[in-house]
């Protein structure tokens, strides 16, 4: 049986509206799940705070710019880097740019390997994000996004 997920509002600012994806079977959106899980890891709370504040500032002050993304295939990842327990661990939040004003935040985690597909923490989130981004891009082809005011009307297979 196919499970559907809808795009839902996450946080909206002057230049960018952040959205996320919520499965009809889950209580939290993907982005909420990411922030809730990462918030439980005390060592990375400062990085998490920094990541959110940065998302908020570019959404409110500057607008999205190319360097904001760390390109990894069709998806992008948001990058703070911190040395934890002697190894570089990157906090990754996978997301997808629909337009310069609409960014869909997915899920992520602490990436411990160069290749996200080799990292047990983010492998599944990376794979999911790629799949959802592909589906959203198909929606984008079939739908004129500039005409859509309420992106919450968009559903994709979860």
């Amino acid at each position, binding site marked *: 049986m196919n499970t559907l997920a809808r795009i839902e509002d996450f946080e909206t600012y002057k230049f960018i509206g952040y959205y996320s994806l919520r499965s009809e079977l889950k209580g939290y959106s993907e982005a909420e799940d990411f922030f809730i899980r990462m918030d439980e890891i005390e060592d990375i709370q400062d990085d998490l705070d920094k990541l959110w504040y*940065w998302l908020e500032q570019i959404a409110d002050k500057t607008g999205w*710019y190319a360097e904001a993304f760390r390109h990894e295939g069709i998806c992008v990842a948001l990058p703070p880097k911190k040395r934890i327990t002697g190894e570089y661990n990157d906090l990754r939040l996978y997301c997808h740019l629909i337009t310069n004003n609409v960014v869909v935040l997915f899920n992520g985690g602490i990436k411990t390997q160069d290749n996200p597909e080799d990292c047990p923490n983010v492998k599944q989130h990376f794979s999911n994000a790629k799949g959802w981004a592909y589906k959203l891009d198909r929606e984008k082809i079939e739908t004129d996004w500039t005409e859509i005011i309420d992106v919450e009307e968009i559903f994709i297979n979860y």
Partner: protein
Amino acid sequence: MKKRRNNIIEKIKNRIKPETKISVDLSIDIADQVRHLLKYGNNIKTQKKLAEILNKEESEISKWLSGLHNLTIDSIAKLTAALDHDIILTDLKARAKYERVIIIYNTQIIFVSDATEVSDSHNYELTDDKDNFLLDKGGNLFFSTEKNINNIGGTFNMTNKSNFEA
């Protein structure tokens, strides 16, 4: 669209330390300034060229300009040297550099200010008209609303500039 309360984000917003905000703000400001100089400056036009001059990979420069990178003083110095223009300016340096500011509109001086004695500043607001310029006390252009201007950091030539000297 319905608006709902995002509890986890509210929690994070309430917890963010002042120094975290300042760090991100500075990083975004520096990235903005470098992008601005690449676009409107007069020596280096692309990230690729900047990377070549700094002997870095272009991806490294892209990371520097993400607005999240923790740039070192040395990296900021290298960027400043390569771009031949200030990237960050302290309040004291700004006061010295812009002790005297001239605003030009359609080649006419319409406003002159002095850091210690600003005149008419409350009555003037720079518009988005394309022919507005700000000159510092040395006659150097440091701001223009004209999109294609390409001589930021250079000297603005006005045939009758001396007429406007206070």
